[in-house]
């Protein structure tokens, strides 16, 4: 069995070969922690882990490729009982060393994280600048890794002490000691994946211990807001509290119910209460009769019961002989004469509230407006109830008894709440029973939006 680990950046590579599973596992957990905690962005991009079993490069091949890739690569080997570790930094271009301080940074990053590594002693020391130090501090801050050592001034310190540390001198004289010290610090800390992830959640690692690696992203996680856009409802939820989550699920449930009700081809046999009160007004033969699947009524009823009790109530309304195509595949009215009657009646609505006579069925009434949104249909129905049926208020059950036969949709509380927020609908408490009525503002909105079309 062999275990090869290669850490590669643009300017350096680190390769670890081991035949010890336990050592490898520990190394990999550390590397994983190192990268995994590098940034939230990185974590957010991890969607899938794939294992490939082709084109494996053996350690010999890697070494060979490394030599072929760049003759400037130098490497030294450190070997103990179970490890062969290699560092293969590119030879630093002397003309660019001051403009590329990150070379040192990368080496430091790798060395600090990994035991049994050594820097090629032939490597030229890199001249440090204040900017370099700042870059290093900045990089460590970005990686959310902070290494402290109060007892050894040579160790890379926190960003608050960074500028006081002579990293160049540290690197020249004590790089191996730094590596060993840093490694010892890591060895003294439980860096299992579980403990690391627990620390990310803020459960275990103490912020007060100076001799540990810190992961300080707890607040970032907690402050992430919930943002789910419900495009169908035209509402956007923000926040991170349970109420909003409940609202989101409630909204999704409503959407699901509406989708189900829209998709179902229900042969419904009902007349609304208005027709029951005004049987002479609308007869069955005035309504488009569709009976695509009369025998499926029971099955449809069952499905509806599963979806919503409100739908159940509608289906249990008194049966009649009239069957309505609620999908609108055979939209009413069909002939011009009928259309003209509807349009004429609709035009007269604004000025003919006092007109007595035949009352249009809501299905016919609605068909003259070309409304498709449930909010509009609800408002039209509210207007219809008040001005055509002369009912001052209505219950949800009552208005749905109009809307559902005409549209196949069920209005839920989110609809009426939205209209209340707009000021188009108001609530009335009658003996403890909440009922609703269209407001003057709602009527004006109705008139401006729909009656102009007619």
């Amino acid at each position: 069995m062999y275990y090869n680990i290669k850490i590669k950046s643009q300017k350096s590579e680190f390769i670890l070969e081991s035949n010890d599973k336990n050592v490898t596992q520990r190394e990999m957990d550390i590397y994983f922690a190192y990268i995994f905690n590098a940034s939230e962005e990185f974590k957010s991009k991890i969607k899938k882990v794939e294992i490939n079993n082709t084109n494996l490069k053996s350690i010999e091949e890697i070494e060979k490729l490394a030599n072929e890739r760049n003759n400037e690569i130098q490497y030294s080997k450190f070997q103990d009982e179970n490890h062969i570790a290699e560092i293969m930094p590119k030879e630093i271009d002397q003309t660019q060393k001051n403009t590329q301080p990150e070379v040192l940074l990368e080496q430091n990053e790798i060395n600090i994280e990994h035991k049994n590594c050594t820097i090629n002693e032939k490597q030229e020391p890199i001249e440090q600048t204040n900017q370099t130090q700042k870059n290093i501090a900045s990089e460590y801050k970005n990686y959310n890794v902070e290494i402290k050592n109060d007892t050894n001034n040579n160790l890379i310190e926190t960003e608050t002490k960074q500028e006081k540390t002579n990293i160049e001198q540290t690197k020249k004289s004590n790089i191996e000691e730094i590596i060993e010290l840093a490694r010892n610090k890591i060895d003294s800390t439980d860096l299992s994946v579980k403990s690391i992830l627990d620390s990310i959640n803020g459960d275990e690692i103490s912020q007060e211990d100076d001799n540990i690696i810190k992961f300080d992203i707890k607040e970032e996680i907690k402050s992430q807001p919930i943002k789910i856009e419900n495009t169908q409802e035209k509402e956007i939820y923000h926040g991170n509290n349970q109420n909003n989550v409940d609202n989101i699920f409630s909204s999704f449930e409503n959407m699901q119910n509406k989708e189900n009700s829209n998709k179902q081809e229900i042969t419904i046999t009902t007349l609304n209460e208005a027709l029951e009160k005004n049987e002479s007004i609308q007869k069955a033969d005035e309504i488009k009769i569709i009976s695509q699947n009369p025998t499926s009524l029971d099955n449809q009823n069952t499905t509806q019961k599963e979806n919503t009790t409100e739908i159940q109530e509608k289906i249990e309304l008194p049966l009649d002989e009239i069957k309505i195509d609620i999908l609108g595949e055979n939209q009413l009215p069909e002939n011009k004469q009928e259309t003209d009657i509807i349009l004429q009646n609709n035009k007269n609505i604004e000025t003919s509230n006092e007109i007595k006579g035949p009352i249009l069925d809501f299905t016919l009434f609605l068909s003259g407006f070309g409304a498709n949104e449930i909010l509009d249909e609800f408002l039209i129905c509210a207007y219809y109830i008040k001005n055509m049926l002369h009912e001052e208020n209505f219950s949800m059950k009552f208005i749905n008894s109009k809307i559902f036969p005409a549209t196949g949709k069920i209005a839920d509380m989110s609809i009426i709440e939205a209209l209340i927020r707009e000021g188009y609908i108001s609530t009335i408490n009658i003996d403890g029973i909440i009922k609703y009525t269209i407001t003057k503002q709602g009527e004006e909105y109705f008139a401006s939006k729909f009656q102009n079309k007619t």
Partner: protein
Amino acid sequence: MPQYVFKMKKGELEIEFSSDDAEFVEQQLEKWREEILKKHAQ
């Protein structure tokens, strides 16, 4: 004998792990994957 390669990348930094120990690779990656997915699910 099966051979496995697993890579993780963050910016320019890349870790590549390769081994012929299928069981170990599977356990190790599954451990990381589960931890990550569990965390994302929270």
